[in-house]
């Protein structure tokens, strides 16, 4: 029933319907919100990040106080099952959350680059486009980078987001991972591509919110 309602919500808006088309089909019925436990996997790591204007801030500013969905990307990634998939899921979730007023102000998205050499704040700003602009739809989406690999590595390693430079030195090889972080800054779920689906993530967000009641 919940899944059906979610699908209807997505299909209600033309843009969202486009996302549904693009996303891989979920081959299982995920457990209903609140019927399962999201474990405290680990604390989100500490470090310094740069926003699209080049302002430095501790990462904790973006991982505490709200439920956070954080994904690593690099802007030149083109594998459809990698960063673009995460982007599509984030987009679809943004649409869904926009239709759910009870979720407004309780969830944020963070997109963090693991390619500081190329992904400067300016590049991240262009990559984000209008997504980084808050339009009063209940959800803020932050696009962040770091000053250097030295600043990045503690974050990458702290999240367990492995990345390596391929032999040509021109590609960043990585596993798609997206992290769900609770208001206290603990990682509560880590999505690989199979579980990175709007329906699953939204259920998890609701499960975390149910803990707060």
């Amino acid at each position, binding site marked *: 029933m919940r899944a059906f309602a979610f699908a209807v919500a997505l299909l209600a808006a033309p843009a969202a319907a486009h996302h549904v088309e693009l996303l891989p089909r979920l*081959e299982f019925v995920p457990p209903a919100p609140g019927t399962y436990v999201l474990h405290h996997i680990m604390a989100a790591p500490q470090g310094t990040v740069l926003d699209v204007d080049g302002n430095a801030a501790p990462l904790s500013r973006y991982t505490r106080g709200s439920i956070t969905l954080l994904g690593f990307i690099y*802007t030149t990634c083109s594998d459809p099952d990698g960063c673009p998939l995460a982007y599509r899921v984030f987009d679809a979730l943004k649409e869904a959350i926009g239709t759910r007023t009870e979720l407004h102000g309780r969830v944020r998205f963070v997109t963090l680059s693991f390619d500081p050499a190329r992904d400067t704040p300016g590049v991240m700003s262009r990559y984000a486009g209008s997504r980084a602009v808050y339009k009063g739809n209940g959800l803020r989406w932050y696009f962040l980078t770091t000053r250097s690999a*030295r600043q990045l590595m503690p974050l990458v390693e702290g999240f367990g987001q492995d990345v390596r430079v391929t032999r040509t030195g*021109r590609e960043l090889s990585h596993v798609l991972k997206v992290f769900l972080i609770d208001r206290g800054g603990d990682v509560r779920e880590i999505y690989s591509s199979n579980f990175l689906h709007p329906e699953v993530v939204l259920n998890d967000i609701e499960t975390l919110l149910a803990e707060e009641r």
Partner: protein
Amino acid sequence: MRRSYCVAVAALACAAFTGVHADETCNSPYISKLIKGQEDYVYVWTLGIEGLGDGSDKLVTVDVNPKSKAYGRVINTVSTGTRAEAHHMGLTDDRRHIWAGGLSENRIWVFDIASNPAKPKLVRTVSDLGDKSGFLGPHTYYALPGRMLVQALSNTKDKSGKTGMALYNNQGKFIDAQPMPSSNGGDGYGYDLAVNPKKNVLLTSSFSGYANYMRPLGELIKDGEAMKNFGNTMVVWDLKALKPQKVLAVPGAPLEIRWSLNPKDNWAITAAALTSKLWLVKQDAKGDWNAKEAGTIGDPAQIPLPVDISITRDGKGLWVNTFMDGKTHYFDLSNPEAPKQTYEKVTGKQVNMISQSWDGKRVYITSSLLANWDKGGADNEQFIRGFAWNGSELTQKFEVDFLKEKLGRAHHMKLGSRALYAKPKGG
């Protein structure tokens, strides 16, 4: 519009892995780095033998790259300094560490294989499994994103086969424990676990407890009561919720579980040790999971004792080692409901684990089952043997004699590669 923000520099390509693959076909699908070419190393988790070398369990690194001057030789050992019935190990999802444990106690040794893949380092010992969960004898180490799911075989209270799974994060911090189901057909036993993430299914199998696996085999099989204490079930779990959904009757101690890695397939296969049967676990048209006896391995009346199995990456073939007769079997799995043996060869006087390279061209076999179940005298060979497989014949390429090298009993294997580890550039 989408392309404008996703492909800012078309000359660069993203090589993101989606998490649905595995390299050595038996690994967790969440393991990130694939060895699709020639592996450089085989790490062998080895039981110490009292009076042989240092007598301790150890991680042995064997160079298996034919282009190396050290091909077929031991290039490193890391001793744990104790003897704890070393058995299985598993890679973390980032493939930076190996978790390895023993069945006679509760310590788990964590080795760093990323800093120098040729020389693993012991970096951590996790020792709170018994205190936190009540379980004993960690067996399977299965990578989940950022976590390790550990299947135990026994418990600290009565050392029977009632056991469960424990969840740790990759830093070795205990997160949660989950007992194997003991109602609705569940028998409480555990052995292996394997995940099909696409279906949100975790599948577990069942063996026996400390009280049985630590007894000499000859003594155990004469004890009729003790022989009743083996698992006869598999369990289908909701992976996301980590809750049991259905108990399947699979008599005779179903052991290793291998999902077909073919994306179109929706089945897993296992071998029941005591009955020498292959069992298929498959999803039906209604989405329900069922177990079905699919075939026989050797002559069950002779108790060949199938131990390890290894599935090809396309799900079309299966290697099976039978311990008692030392045979390595190959089954055609084109029809998984009716596997057909197409090849067999005696590869040792006793054989246990079997691993194959991603391309299926190389097969590695070790000898030890359990310290008290291995054969005696001249039949107690201890080795790793490397074979080439051309599709019709196994040809031995090298052997390391673990007794001659004063190492111990060769058990579980994982493959290693130098090329997997590098850091991003930039500042």
